[in-house]
């Protein structure tokens, strides 16, 4: 078929397409709903939730996980749009890292050195490494599906950032359950758990985000 004919044919296919931003937002809402369902079915909130809500350490976990989710969402939005400026949005992904580092310094100042190791190891490390990926895997699939409607020219990176987004959402729910609130614990185990999802996203993205 010559190009003229192709253009005439494409010109006839004028069905209105959903703007990508709307598709991605719907994907995020579905992902959050799925994460919530798995969380409440498998774990549920910790027993002393009301008391925990009054402590800075508990609340700070959500500052970090939500910062990760918001930054990752901003990054996948531009990664899915060809020709969009990337650097600025990718740099925002450092925000949760910086927040966590600052909290780590504060924790190091306020807690005696003898307790550092036990705070970092906590008691829930296995639970954390199991459930953040478990809560996040279905949301990751939903997000990747939504991203297929986009046009990511870097499928591996986009998949990895989708994993960070799924990880941010999953960690936000998981943090409601976990009573290891020290920034040390969050820095070690949450990061590892989220990295598992980022890796899964990168591997899957390489295949499913090609177009």
């Amino acid at each position: 078929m010559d190009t003229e004919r192709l253009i005439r044919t494409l010109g006839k296919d004028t069905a209105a397409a959903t703007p990508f931003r709307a598709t991605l937002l719907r994907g995020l809402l579905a992902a959050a709903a799925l994460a919530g369902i798995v969380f409440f079915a498998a774990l549920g909130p910790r027993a002393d939730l009301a008391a925990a809500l009054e402590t800075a350490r508990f609340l700070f976990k959500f500052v970090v996980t939500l910062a990760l989710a918001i930054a990752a969402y901003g990054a996948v939005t531009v990664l899915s749009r060809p020709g969009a400026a990337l650097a600025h949005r990718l740099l925002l992904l450092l925000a949760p890292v910086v927040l966590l580092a600052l909290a780590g310094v504060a924790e190091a100042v306020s807690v005696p050195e003898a307790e550092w190791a036990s705070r970092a190891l906590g008691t829930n490390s296995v639970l954390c490494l199991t459930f953040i990926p478990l809560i996040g895997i279905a949301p990751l699939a939903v997000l990747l599906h939504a991203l297929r409607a986009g046009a990511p020219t870097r499928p591996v990176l986009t998949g990895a950032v989708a994993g960070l987004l799924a990880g941010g959402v999953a960690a936000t729910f998981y943090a409601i359950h976990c009573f290891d609130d020290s920034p040390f614990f969050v820095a070690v185990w949450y990061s590892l758990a989220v990295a598992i999802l980022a890796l899964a996203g990168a591997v899957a993205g390489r295949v499913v985000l090609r177009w």
Partner: protein
Amino acid sequence: MRVTKADEARLSRLLLASLDGDERAYAAFLSEIAALVRGFARRRLTGGGIDAEDVVQDTLLAIHLKRHTWLVGAPVLPWVFAIARHKLIDAFRKKGRRVEIDIDDFAGVLAEPETETASERDIARALEGLAPVQRSVVASISVDGRSIAETADGLKMSETAVRVALHRGLAAIARRFGRN
């Protein structure tokens, strides 16, 4: 080929009108884009057995199917050329893989990847792989040049069904190109 601010503004208006369903604006937009992408691809394809027109058609299909990723108000040309670059890299990657396969599987046989590539990537042949309804609709519109209404009449389908089949058929052709 110099692209000016006026070109950018005109293309932006045309694409905006296209997204509102203006068929003529869309055909005009695609024709201008085809010329720009043709220049872009030819400058980067000197020899090497990749047909610039294949890259142009791949890019047009991709732009068509991904047109909702253009952010209304954002510059059109960076978006267009990012898609064209993506499809050009894709063409190089496939070419590399195809040559490797040729050497491994047909050692000693005089393979001619260039002509093979050109015919394999012909959209007319891509039609053959479509589901029957999609094939009749796409062929009626592309090969016979009929309108949506005439096609609906000829195939005893509703216009909506014709539009859906056309859209799905084009998406299937683009996917097939992506895999080959």
